[in-house]
């Protein structure tokens, strides 16, 4: 199930959408293109990304999220209990359509199972299923309904548990939960976030990953090691590997997803610089612990840049493999 060689390569989940799909999404929003026609283009783009990931030589693939607007809005639109409030800025010119919880949250139908089946049918490599976590979905939405955030987070966790159960049943062997908001209010909420993750991963027959990025990781370390997952995937490149210092104090006891590509920069990393990043990380982690991935989803890169960045990453991983006896 786990790739047998060292430093398996993967990605965080999202890939850029081809221009014709972006155009089609705009047309669909304006009512000028029906849902089935849009679906066809989404499937075509997914097929392309699976093929490209195989060509690049990635070990654990993703479906590329060609059918998602962003990591929060997609789930809010698919689940009961949400409406979309409007555009809110996250940083730079990155905006998302921020949802608002207006009723009890619930699942009408499986969200990702069909996409997982489709993507997995196109490749013999394992496809990882990626879901936004309950704490982040709650934290990145306005809440006009639940009196206590705790109830909202745990309700979302139960909904997502149903979803991962269905995904594992459909054959998913890798389940990744994205929780970039997990360190928003660590003193108050870390235990809640952990409890919610436990609801999702408890007894699950899959290799589980939590993805965390852009926040104060030091504040949740070493308690982060108690998260009920096999791997913690983190952004390192964006802060020039400053995060490594945090892990020197106390041994990192999970597998690590090592983010070696800064997805916010247009500049493509050289193979040498990725190699040197991995080598620095090996001062803190053992080779067996390390998966190689970008810092975060590649959604906002251009297609060319995304592919070139992944080329550098895969090549660097290959090179480092040859250096380990």
């Amino acid at each position, binding site marked *: 199930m786990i790739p047998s060689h060292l430093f398996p390569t993967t990605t965080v989940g999202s890939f850029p959408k081809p221009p014709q799909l972006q155009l089609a999404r705009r047309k669909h929003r304006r009512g000028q293109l029906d849902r089935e026609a849009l679906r066809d283009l989404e499937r075509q783009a997914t097929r392309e990304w699976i093929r490209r990931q195989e060509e690049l030589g990635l070990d654990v693939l993703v479906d590329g999220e060609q059918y998602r607007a962003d990591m929060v809005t997609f789930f809010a639109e698919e689940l009961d209990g949400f409406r979309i409030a409007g*555009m809110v800025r996250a*940083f730079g010119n990155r905006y998302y359509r921020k949802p*608002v919880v207006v009723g009890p949250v619930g699942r009408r139908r499986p969200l990702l199972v069909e996409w997982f089946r489709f993507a997995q049918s196109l490749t013999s490599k394992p496809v990882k299923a990626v879901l936004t976590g309950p704490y982040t979905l709650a934290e990145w939405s306005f809440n006009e309904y639940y009196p206590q955030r705790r109830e909202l987070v745990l309700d979302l966790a139960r909904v997502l548990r149903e979803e991962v159960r269905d995904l594992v049943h459909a054959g998913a062997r890798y389940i990744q939960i994205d929780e970039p908001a997990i360190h928003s209010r660590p003193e108050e909420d870390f235990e809640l976030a952990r409890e919610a993750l436990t609801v999702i991963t408890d007894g699950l027959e899959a290799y589980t990953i939590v993805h965390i990025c852009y926040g104060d990781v030091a504040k949740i370390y070493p308690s982060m090691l108690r998260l009920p997952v096999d791997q913690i995937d983190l952004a390192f490149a964006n802060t020039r590997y400053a995060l490594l210092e945090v892990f020197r104090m106390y041994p990192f006891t999970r597998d690590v997803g090592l983010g070696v590509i800064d997805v916010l920069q247009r500049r493509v990393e050289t193979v040498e610089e990725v190699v040197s990043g991995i080598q620095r990380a090996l001062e803190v982690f053992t080779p067996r612990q390390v998966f190689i991935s970008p810092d975060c989803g590649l959604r906002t890169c251009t297609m060319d840049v995304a592919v070139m960045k992944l080329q550098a990453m895969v090549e660097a991983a290959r090179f480092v493999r040859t250096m380990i006896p």
Partner: protein
Amino acid sequence: MITTVVGSYPKIPDPPASGRWRSAKEKLEQGEISSEEFLQVEREVTLEVIREQVEAGIELITDGQIRWEDSQTYFARGLTGFTLNGLQRWFDTNMYYRIPVAEGEVLWTDPISVEDYRFAKARSPRPVKPVITGPYTLARLSQNRYYADFEDFVLNLALALNQELRALDAEDPPLIQVDEPAILKYKSDFPLFREAMITLTEGVRAPLALYTYFGDVTGIYPEILDLPFDAIGLDFVAGPRNWEVLEKAPFEKWLGFGILDARNTRLESVEELVRALDRVSRYVPLDRVYLNPSAGLEFLPRQVARAKLQRLVEAKRAALGVGV
């Protein structure tokens, strides 16, 4: 009572109106437009958000901080000695900022925000207040690789930003606002904070407001009243314990009464705002109250921000018994 805002305002309107700022920023990053062309767009958007605040009936406005990438970057890039590193979450919000890194001596060489302030002031029919991020918060959310210790870093930033305040002061503003949310997270630093605030405000003649948000001032009250400011802004939404604080000592300054939730879409009713004003009037006479949201409004979609400002103005009118 004066209705005002804490600072930021959503940069783009709600769809289907086009997010001009956003697409211009994209073009700037792709090298398709020049920084002068982008500045032009930012100025047009500034005029738009000035108009929205005025139309909502706000009496003391800001420029909406349209030109602020984030509250750290806008000032850090105007000072010498800083580089900008990776992303970090801004307090417990869904917004991120670039971490400034002090790699050399931090010096003020030229005005940072004065040109933007002049632009807004000259074009607004209502009084405009400039806002700066205070030296303590700027230092707390930065990395220090140059100064011997944090204290040294903060006090040098206070000296640098004092020159910015003096430059703003020369523009004759009705009020200058200093934002210091970080002190609420590190209250044991209050002695250092006091020293920084004294340095920061030295020689400034304009009335000064110190705004805190995302928490309460328990533990540093009433000491905070001794700082050289005419008004203190408190967040009663994220910091409900600020109500207890008011019991402790007479509030002898102007109060920035942050009662309207800047971080949730739920629209407060006029009645609940009037009740809150009634309650606060037991501690501070209403003619010493700035009525404002709990924080900057950029956490909300534009139409919600606008509706909240209108509600604030309705609440003032209702509280004073003036017909709407």
